[in-house]
Structure formats: C-alpha cells, structure tokens
C-alpha cells in the first residue's frame, strides 16, 4: 500500500528530472512520452494503494515516513505520506485525469518549440499535487501547496514572451503566496500550542476557542486563494493565458479544488470553529453566484469555462463548509471529469481555428466538428446537472445538505444553490448555442482546418472520448438516498456531519428544484442565443459591472498594489537616498575635515603620539568599566 503511494508520488518527479537532465539530447516527442508514462505509472501506483487499502480491514489509513524532513527542539515533521480513503481518492483523480490531460497535451503542444520545458513543468505539477494530497502532515501539505503554486506560475507564464502571460503568472503566484502566508500563520499557532503538525495526533484538539478560530481562518485564507474564491479569486481568469491543457489540469480539474481537499482534511479543526466553517460555506455560496453572473458576459471561450470553474468550486466549498465533506469531494471528482472535458473540447475548437478563442467568431463549429460537439454537449449537461449526467448526482446532494441545516442561513444557501443551477444552465448553453449549432460562420469556414484528417491528433481525441464517458457515467457511483459507496468509502476520513445529512424528502425536492432551475437556464439561453439575437445582456451598468468582474482588480490595484509601490518608491526617494546613503559620505567628509584640523597635532614627536594613544585607549576602557 505504501509502496503504491511512493511510486505514485515519485514517478512524475522522476519524469521531470529525466526531461530536465536530458535537455536537448532527446527529441521533443520523447520528452512528451516520458511525461505521459510517468503520470500513468503514478496512476498505477494510486490504483495499487487504493486496492490494498480496500482490502485492509476498516481501511482507516496508514502513515509511511522516509526520513525526518524538518526538526528543531521538540518540533519535528517527517517526509511522511498518509494513505487513507481521502488521499487515495485524490491520488486517483489527480493521476488519472492528469494522465489523460498530459496525453492530450502531446497533440496540443505538437510543434511548439519549447515542448520539453512544457512536459517537464507539467509532470512537476503532477508531482507537487500528489505531494499535496499525500502529505502526512500539514508542513508537507504546505510544501505541495506551494509547489503547485509554483508549477501553476511556470505554466501560466509558459509563453513567456507574451507580457500578458507573464503578468498573469505573477499575479497568480503572489495571490497564492498570500494564501500560503495565512496558512503558515495558522501553523505557527498550532506549533506554539501542540508542537505538532501531523495528522495523527488528533491535531487541533485542546486549543482555546480563539486559537482554533484563528487557525481555521488561516487555513480558509489558503484554501480561498488556491481555489479562487472571493475575495482571492481574481487570478484565475487571467490564468487562462496558459496553454489549454494547463487550464484543464491545473485551473479546473485538480489544483484549484485543493481548497476543498484542505477543508475535508482538516475538518477536525473546522468543526471546532463552526462559525469559520460556515463562513467558508458562505464564501462558496457568494462565489458561485458572482462567478456565474460574470460568466454570462465573457466572450473568451476559456474564460467562460474558468468562471464556471470558480462557480462550481463555490458549490464544493458550500458542501464542505456545511459539513457534507463527501458531497463536496464527490462534486470535486465529477467536476474533474466534466470540466477537464469542457476545457479539452474547447482546446480542440481553439486548435482547429488556429488559436481563435472569441466565441463571437465561432458560430456553427458543430457542423465541422461533430465529435467535439457531442463531447462538449455531454460535458455541458453534466455541468448543468441534468440527469443522468454526472453533475446531477453530485450537485444535488450538496444543495440538499444545505436544506438539512434547517436554519435561516441554510435556506439562503439553498436558494443560492438553486439560483446557481439556473445561472449554470444559462451561461453553459449560451456558450453552446453561440459556438456549435447552426450554419458555420464565414470566419469558421475560413480558419477551420483539420489535423491528420480528423478533428485532432489521436492523442487528443482518445482522452476527450474517455472523459466524455466518465462525465456521463461518473456520477452513477452515488445517488445519495439509495446508493452511496463514495460516502461510505470516505467515512473513516471525513464523515458527514449529522446536521448536514439530508432526509430523503429533502433530497427529492432539491433534485427536482435544481433540475428545473437548470432546464430553465437552458431554455432562457435557447430563447436568447439560439438566434444569436444578442451575445451580451444590454443593461449598461450591469453589463459594465460584470465585464469588469465586479471591479475587484481595480479595487485591489488601488488598495494594495499602488500604495505598496508608492510607499516603496517614497521610501527610496525620501529616506534611503537622502538619509541612509548620504550618511557614509557625510561621515567621510566630516572625517576629512576633522582630519585636516587634527593634523596640527601631528607634531612628529613619538612621545606625544604614545601619550595620546594610551590616553585614548584608557579613556574608552575606563568608560566601559564605569558604565558597566
């Protein structure tokens, strides 16, 4: 079991090292296959760990330590993995979906002259993500957490000659560094009180209420930054500057959902800080609405899907925040399938149109790309949550668990969830109606070209097909009232809170409501966009507000970045240069002037010198002795 976990973790790192060390001595395609193989080997390791954990009685999990990573005083943190139901689920998702996306990249990145660097980065990402989910203590989790941020930075800025890509990469890194910092502060509190960051010691138990609330807030800060939840969401849409498979892998399927994993992993702490946990749920509810609204006015195909990702992670935060950890995790899994699928079909479209991403130019693409069209439709239906597609099963149980709370905020969450379903239907099918049905537009006719006589290379079509199947049937793993192997599996690691367990009635009426809301959204989208009457809502104020993404970027620029930069510049201008840097020369000048004056006592008589020397030294020594 632990062997599988180590294999899973180290295979992608081996891939990265091999590609980096070989450099230009191997052909590009070899680098691509090294990366793909290493990630599929990792998937093999994950399956190994999963199967052996399943056969273990009670499957509660097992730690394995390679060596002590950091040690000081009575604090020590091992290079330690934790194989338990929660981490194996994440390992399977990360390496499985990851492997498919890396395979897809072979076709997508074909012809880029820095392919090797891309594949080194992407297997490094998979390694980092696996470190995050397998780490057996919070310190290693934070190490993985930071390294996924680094790989995200590297991959967003992959095309580093584009200034917009470099800016987006820096923005993503700095916002995530902010989240890392709040998490680190939370860890300092834990270390000060319990001397440990390991998952074993029933961590976080016995803290004072204030301390536990602060720890939970710090963790939530990290989770919100990584998962692009309000107020730390602004980096995600810009991150679409990276290659499309990166958007699929990092900014949809795996990394951005890490916040949900964190909440599930540290639920001991969040349950002691129930208020903070509900703040997490509220953050999710707010984000799912705001992101859904912004998605309505985006014209870049990837940005629409990016906002949809934010919105869906909002659902996961909502589920995990109210205490339905397994529902949140289940949605994480189905979302990984259908969102990766949507990004990859979008990638096929972008690829076939020579890099075009503006949906206003894409009308009628379905006629030329039927495979892409049907796969996209499967993903879209799963996203909206129409049965029997996977999203239906996972989204429903999250919304139902808010109903189970039975409190006023529970009902607000419920309404948000239903409204979010409507928005999801609307923005998803806006995209659908604008891009796929109808006669191909002149732009599409002119720019469309086939690769290898198909809609893409086989390395691109196979993963898309597999994910289309998974997006369709992946949800059948669990239908909460009757059939729940997924929740049962996770129960030892993250048991759903009793207050968040819905009754059958709540499940049924919530299902009906979300499906109806989703259908209503689709119907409205059809009414507005099927005839391409208008691509964007007309009300000017709201339209501008949405197009400016509720002015968050402008706000942060004015409140944080500009004052910091101005303060730093002022420090340099007003203090460093005139005061600090001048002190030396001033001292020097004074010294010279004094020297000129004192020169007069240079009499040439040795006895005078010795007298001065002795008197001076004695004086200083005396001063120290007297002053103590």
């Amino acid at each position: 079991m632990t062997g599988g976990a180590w294999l899973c973790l180290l295979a992608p790192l081996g891939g990265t090292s091999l590609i980096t060390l070989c450099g230009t001595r191997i052909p590009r395609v070899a680098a691509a296959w090294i990366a793909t193989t290493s990630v599929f080997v990792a998937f093999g390791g994950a399956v190994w760990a999963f199967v052996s954990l399943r056969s273990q009685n009670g499957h509660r999990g097992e730690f394995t330590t390679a060596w002590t990573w950091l040690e000081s005083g009575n604090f020590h943190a091992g290079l330690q993995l934790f194989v338990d139901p929660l981490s194996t689920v994440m390992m399977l998702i990360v390496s499985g979906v990851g492997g498919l996306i890396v395979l897809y990249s072979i076709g997508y990145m074909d012809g880029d002259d820095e392919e090797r660097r891309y594949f080194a980065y992407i297997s490094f990402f998979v390694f980092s993500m696996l470190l995050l989910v397998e780490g057996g203590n919070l310190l290693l989790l934070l190490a993985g957490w930071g390294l996924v941020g680094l790989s995200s930075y590297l991959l967003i800025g992959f095309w580093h000659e584009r200034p917009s890509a470099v800016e987006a990469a820096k923005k993503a890194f700095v916002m995530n560094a902010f989240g890392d910092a709040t998490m680190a502060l939370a860890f300092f509190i834990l270390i000060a009180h319990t001397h440990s960051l390991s998952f074993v010691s029933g961590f976080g138990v016995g803290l004072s209420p204030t301390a536990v609330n602060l720890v939970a807030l710090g963790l939530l800060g990290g989770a919100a930054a990584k998962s692009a939840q309000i107020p730390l969401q602004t980096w995600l849409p810009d991150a679409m500057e990276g290659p499309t498979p990166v958007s699929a892998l990092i900014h949809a399927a795996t990394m951005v959902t890490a916040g949900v994993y964190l909440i599930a992993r540290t639920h001991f702490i969040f349950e002691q800080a129930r208020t903070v946990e509900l703040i997490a749920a509220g953050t999710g509810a707010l984000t799912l609405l705001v992101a859904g609204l912004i998605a309505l006015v985006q014209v870049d195909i990837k940005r629409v899907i990016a906002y949809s990702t934010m919105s869906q992670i909002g659902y996961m935060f909502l589920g995990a925040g109210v205490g339905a950890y397994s529902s949140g995790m289940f949605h994480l899994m189905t979302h990984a399938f259908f969102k990766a699928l949507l990004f990859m079909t979008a990638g096929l479209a972008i690829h076939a149109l020579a890099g075009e991403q503006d949906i206003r130019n894409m009308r009628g693409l379905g006629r030329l790309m039927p495979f892409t069209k049907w796969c996209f439709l499967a993903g879209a239906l799963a996203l909206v949550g129409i049965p029997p597609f996977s999203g239906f099963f996972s989204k429903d149980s999250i919304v139902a668990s808010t109903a189970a709370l039975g409190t006023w905020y529970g009902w607000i969450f419920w309404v948000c969830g239903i409204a979010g379903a409507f928005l999801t239907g609307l923005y998803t099918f806006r995209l659908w109606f604008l891009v796929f049905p109808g006669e191909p537009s002149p732009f599409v006719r002119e720019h469309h070209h086939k690769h290898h006589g198909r809609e893409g290379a086989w390395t691109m079509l196979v993963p898309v097909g597999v994910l289309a199947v998974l997006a369709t049937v992946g949800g059948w793993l669990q239908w909460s009232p009757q059939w729940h192997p997924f929740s049962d599996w996770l129960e030892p690691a993250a048991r759903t809170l009793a207050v968040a367990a819905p009754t059958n009635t709540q499940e049924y009426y919530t299902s009906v409501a979300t499906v109806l809301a989703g259908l209503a959204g689709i119907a409205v989208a059809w009414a507005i966009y099927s005839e391409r009457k208008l691509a964007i809502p007309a009300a000017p104020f709201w339209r501008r507000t949405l197009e400016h993404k509720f002015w968050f970027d402008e706000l942060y620029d004015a409140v944080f970045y500009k004052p910091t930069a101005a303060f730093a510049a002022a420090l340099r201008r007003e203090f460093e240069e005139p005061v600090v840097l001048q002190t030396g020369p001033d001292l020097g000048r004074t010294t010279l002037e004094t020297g000129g004056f004192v020169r007069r006592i240079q009499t040439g008589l040795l006895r005078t010198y010795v007298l001065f020397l002795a008197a001076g030294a004695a004086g200083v020594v005396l001063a120290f002795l007297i002053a103590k």
Partner: protein
Amino acid sequence: MNASSLTSILIWLPIAGAILIWILPLSRYATGSLALLFSLAEVGFWIEQAARFDFTRSGLQMEERATWFGDLHVSYHVGVYGFSMWLVGLTVVAMAACTGYGFWVGRDRSRAYFGLMLLLTGATVGVFVAQDLLVFYAFFEAMLIPLYVLIGVWGGARRMEATIKFVIYTMAGSLLMLAAIIAYGLKSGTFDLVNGPTSASRWLFLGFMLAFVIKAPLFPFHGWLPDAYREAPPEVSAVLSGVIAKAGLYGMLRIAIAKFPDPTSFYRTAVLALAAAALVYGSLLAFRSTDFRGVVAYSSLAQSGLIALGLFAGTDLGFDGAVLQMVAHGLISTSLFLIAGAVERRTTTGEFRFLGGMARGRPALATLLMTLGVISLAVPGSASFAGEFLILAGVFQRAWWWSAIGAGAIVLAAMYMLRLISAVLHEARGSTVADEALDLRPGELALVVPLVAGLLFLSAWPAGISHHSFFGQSPAASVRSQFK
C-alpha cells in the same frame, strides 16, 4: 591526521596559499589554477571535518589552544561547534566558487587578486572558529582588509566611493567592538570565549552589537550596502552578502547573545524591531530597485533581518531556523550574484530596462536563475522555506506580530523576486541582449551548479542542518549553557 588540527589547517592553508602566490612569479593562468587548487583543497578539508564531527557530543570540538599572552590570558584558541562548522562549510564552498569565477573571467593583476581571495578565505574561517575574543577580533579585521582592496581595485566605476563608505562604516563598528573586547577582557580576567564568564553590561553588549549590525547589516546601518554590492566585482559582492554578512550574524549568536544574556533580554524588543524593519524595508526597496544586483542587495538586507529575528527570538525554533537560513541564504545570494555577473558580462548592464527575454535559447541560464529565484523567495518545500518557517514559528512564540510582519514580507519577497526573474528572462528581448549572447558556459555551470545542488539537497533534508547545529534537544538551552 589529528582531527583537532583540521580547524587550524582550515584557517592557515589558504593564508599559506596566499603568501605562496605573492612570492612565486607565476603566470596569470598558473596563479588562478593554484588558487583554485587551494580553495578546493579547503573544501576537501572541510568535508573531512564534517565527517569527523561528532554530533552526539556537546561542547567545542577539534579544539586547539596555545597561550599567546599568558599574563593577559589571551590564547590562540580555535575549535568548532555544530553551527560554526556549517558556516565554515558555507565559507569554503562559496569562496571556492567565487575564486573560480575570478579565474573564469580572468581578473587582471592576478597574483594580487588571488592572494587576497585566499587571505579572505582564511580570515573568514578564522572568524567562525575563533574562541578567543582577541583572535576573533584579529580575524574580523583581517577579513576586511582584502575586501577593501578587492572592491577598491577591481570594482566598477564608482568603486572608490563605495570603498570609502564601506571602510568608514565597518571601522566605526570594529573600533567600538575592540574597546568592548578590552573592557570585557580586563573585567573578567580572560579573553577566552569558552571559559569566560557571562556579562551583564549593557554598554559592552551595545559595543559588540554595533559592529555586528553594521556587518550583517540591519536597518538603518546598511548605508554601505547598496553601493558596495553594486560596485564590487560580482564575485566579491557574492562573498560579501553570502558569507561576510553571516559573520555579523554569527557574532550576534556566538558573542552578543551567548555572553550577554541579560542585556539580550533587555534589548530584545529593540533588536527585534530593527530586524523586522530591515526585513520590511529591504523587501520594499528590493521591489523598487531597477537593477539585478540592487534587488539581490536589498533582499540580502531583508534576509539579514529575518535571520536576526530568529536569533533574537531566543527560542529553539528560532536558533535552528536562523542557522539553517544563514547557510541557505549564503548559497542563494552567492549564486545569484555570480549569475548577475554572468548576465552583466553578456549585456554590459544589470539595469532591468535594458534586459529581458534572455530565457529564449538559453535554457541553462533560465533554469538556474528560475530555480534560484524561487528558492530565494522561499517557495514552500525549499531549504529557505524550511529556514523561514522555523524562524517565524520561533519568533511567534515570542509575540505573534513578528511572525505576521514576517509573513507579509514573504509576500513581498514573491513580488520582488518574480519581478527580477521576468525582467531578466521574460517578455521582449532587451536592447542590450544580443542574439549571440551565449547561454551559461560549462565553466560557469561548474561554479553555480554545485551551489544549486547543495540547495536542492538541503531542500530535501533541511533537518540535516536544523537538527545538527546545537547539541541536545533544545538549542535555546544550549545557548544558555554557553554551548557546553
């Protein structure tokens, strides 16, 4: 070979090398080779020392003592503790890389140059192993003399100005330290650091601290730093920020904190405030610097502040983190300055407005600068992250706001380091970056790659240093007991 003579060998071997080079009328190439040979032998002796060091034993190891002035109780007394051994290692490794760099770029007046580099190596090792205050002072001063000459002769256009500033600042600190040393020695009847008593004198503490905060430096005593780091030859800047600055921080640990426990508690908040100010101020100025070396220089100021935070936290985690961070930052800034030198050689400038786009077609340069940059901004999982984490967790136990300030500075570090990386490597090609500008050559790689490999090794096993610097389970207790 007797283990205890290793310490003396580490001091005197490079000094003997320096004298040999000054005496022998060798060609430039032969001089460089000889100097490089000496510095590599030095690394070999250090490895031998580390291998023979007994981490399960407390107290001073590989000790040598010979009476110097018997009636004053001054003796040539040297030896190593765990933490000083790591700093000696940093010194010899960084000096070997920098000497190699000088050889690679072919410094003129080679006999003078390489002799001074070797002399600097020996003196710096002496600072880290001296166990007698007068010996310590002698090496502390001996370390400065080659630096003055190296900056003043081989530096950039404004080198004299930089040298004069450097001399004035360091002299001011050193003289007060000398007075403090004499007063301490007369009062306690010995200059020995191991057997000497602790002192409660606040004035003596301040006398020592002034020398150390100038050398480290901490805000606002860093007036010499920006010019010295910009005007010195790159390999000398590398030594200054990577190694020499650590001598100041080492002095705080070995003398100010260990010998003056009461004044340390009395001035703790004041020193922590200076350290935090250095951290924030350095980070902010690094963020606005317009050239490669300016960013690294101010980030060194910030890192000195961070390390001082760890030392004056006075907690287990703070001490261990500070030692780990001294070594990690030493390797980082040495390599960064050498890369700055490599960039300047190719483009004639370090100004960001003339640079950019160097990543294309230069994979080795891009990979190394990127790796160093992200380790330098303490990406979680790296050696410097481990050091910063321990320091901030340690100072948290003193008061939470120090860690909050530190965490804020970490975000700033991400901002200035990523700015440096993209200004050099990314976006449009800078006006001074010629297409023909080469990637790092094998000679340059041979200097920087070992340092980076060391950092990666420390990233995989930071406990290698953090748990092997002080004897016993509690570094704070070890400091309180004078490392006995």
